[in-house]
């Protein structure tokens, strides 16, 4: 059993933010201008106090703590939503009520308590998802500027999410193909394997933005020399440089995992396989691959999470995806738009990590 006291840290942060935080909500004249900050005690309805006992039970060392933390988070969010709607009443139509730093800090701290490793975590996460859905469905959050931005951009966000998923999967697939070939070559010659390892390690040192930038003129020259490639759907900007660049980054964790998994097989087992008359192919399919599976899944998990993150940068070279929303928001100084791109990226990365982590533990 892990000690109980570390849970007090996020709980304390949430309390401090709610009691002394200067900026729980702010009312701005439009989506780009900064607004006037308001403290939680000045703006939240009285029933928001209910979240305090829930917060304290959520920090206490008992089985139901994550559930209490989820309830606290939902109460707080509902209160913030109602307060935002109240602020907007009578204001100009372009006015926006935006969540401030204190509110974000309190929400994030409560989320940490919900997802804290321990029993009832999955149940609490389900409760949270259900509650969020209900709040959104009931229009309780509609006053918050993030929801306003989302309603205005609903189609664009959905399309960006799909593109993001597709790009991540494609980059992962490309990297897997490259890493598998390099790993097999490395299995035949240890020297070659070490060389590829160093090569891909070198790629990691190049910043992603620089690598994408480098790939654009290289691809342009390549497409100029072989116009047929353009007909095949390749372009010097857009998805092509992003996919190639991201795949190069992802290849290193995949190659490392493949190499470790393929070479970690017990020599006695390999000797037995040889003595029983297995050829190279059979030994790979029957012995090396299944025995290396936990290693492969570990590498795949790292690479998949990295893919979701790196595809965000693909927005810079016109690949689309949630990154495009983030960079558009940055260009406009529209914080809500940035968050509209960034929050799904974070959720996606966490979901991929949790899903593959569960698979890894089962293997």
């Amino acid at each position: 059993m892990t000690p109980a006291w570390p849970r007090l840290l996020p709980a304390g942060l949430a309390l401090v933010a709610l009691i002394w935080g200067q900026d729980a909500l702010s009312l701005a004249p439009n989506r780009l201008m900064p607004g006037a900050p308001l403290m939680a005690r000045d703006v939240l309805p009285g029933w928001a106090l209910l979240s305090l006992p829930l917060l304290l039970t959520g920090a206490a060392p008992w089985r139901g703590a994550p559930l209490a933390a989820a309830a606290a988070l939902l109460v707080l969010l509902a209160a913030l939503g109602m307060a935002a709607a109240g602020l907007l009443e009578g204001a100009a139509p372009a006015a926006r009520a935006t969540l401030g730093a204190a509110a974000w800090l309190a929400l994030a701290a409560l989320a940490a308590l919900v997802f804290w490793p321990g029993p009832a975590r999955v149940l609490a996460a389900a409760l949270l998802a259900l509650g969020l859905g209900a709040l959104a469905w009931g229009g309780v959050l509609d006053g918050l500027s993030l929801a306003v931005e989302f309603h205005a951009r609903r189609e664009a966000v959905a399309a960006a999410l799909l593109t993001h998923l597709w790009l991540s999967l494609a980059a992962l697939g490309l990297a897997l193909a490259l890493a598998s070939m390099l790993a097999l070559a490395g299995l035949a010659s240890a020297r070659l394997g070490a060389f590829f390892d160093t090569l891909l390690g070198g790629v990691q040192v190049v910043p992603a933005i620089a690598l994408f930038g480098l790939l654009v003129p290289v691809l342009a020259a390549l497409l100029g020399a072989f116009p047929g490639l353009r007909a095949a759907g390749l372009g010097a900007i857009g998805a092509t440089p992003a996919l190639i660049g991201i795949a190069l980054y992802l290849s290193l964790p995949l190659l490392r995992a493949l190499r470790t998994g393929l070479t970690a097989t017990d020599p006695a087992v390999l000797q037995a396989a040889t003595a029983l008359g297995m050829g190279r192919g059979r030994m790979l399919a029957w012995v090396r691959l299944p025995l290396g599976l936990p290693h492969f899944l570990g590498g795949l998990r790292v690479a998949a999470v990295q893919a979701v993150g790196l595809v965000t940068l693909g927005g810079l070279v016109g690949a689309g995806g949630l990154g495009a929303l983030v960079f558009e928001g940055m260009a406009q100084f529209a914080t809500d738009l940035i968050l509209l791109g960034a929050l799904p990226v974070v959720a996606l990365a966490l979901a991929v990590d949790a899903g593959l982590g569960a698979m890894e533990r089962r293997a």
Partner: protein
Amino acid sequence: MIEFDDVSVRFGAAEAVRGVSVAIPPGALAVLVGPSGSGKTTLLRLVNRMATPSAGQVRVRGEDVALADPARLRRSVGYVMQSMGLFPHWSVARNIGTVPALLGWPQPRIAARVEELLALVRLDPALAQRRPAALSGGQAQRVGLARALAADPDILLMDEPFGAVDPIVRRELRAELTRIHAATGKTILLVTHDPIEALELATHLIVLREGQLVAAGEAAALAAPPAAPFLRALFGPEALALRRLSLLRVGDAALDGPAPDAAPEIAPEASLAEAWILMQERGAPVLAVGARHLPWSALLPR
């Protein structure tokens, strides 16, 4: 069945095997014995091309192994090793069925064969679905043996097969091997560094030292005096004498002429060791073997 013809094996600068010529007849249980580093494992691995000779020829069933397809050759020769090398991700049944699966047998035939083999090596059929990690050392070694016998090879190679189990289990497994050898009539080539084990199991002995052949032949003949000094040093004089007694039969040593009236009776198939024990127990210097007799002096080397 297996012939080594002036075989040498070189690993870099070192010569592991030097000019060994020896033939192992079909149905023999030949034991390769010698101190560690004597090249016995290398000699064994030449048979299924796990090692390649730098000079000379190795023939299996009359054919030069250098010309055989290595995978096919290995599937036709059973192989058991000290570390067993069972596949940890497969059930016992699937481990045993490896070579039949490689040979493309249909599933039902493999399943039937696995059942047969579990019975042959006296393993509880309930173990078939277990993983190797759940087995004791002795059970794992029996699975290794069953796996080697799966496709019914006429030749079985065993590299220190009982090295990793405790002495009691080792004794049990040796008895089991003798039984299986008698029941199946396979040609077995076994490597051990333990002279007692060699003497207990072998019908044929091949003694190696520093990569060279010291002695080879039928165990009874090799154990008879005058044994070469190296053999005496390797086995110890007592073990050698006892082993000789257990290999020779009463019927071969008995003398013509009837025994005294009170002499205890012994069957001609009994070993001289059993005759010696009977003499000790009864205090009788002479035993009756049908119409002939066996005096204690006949037990001494001539």
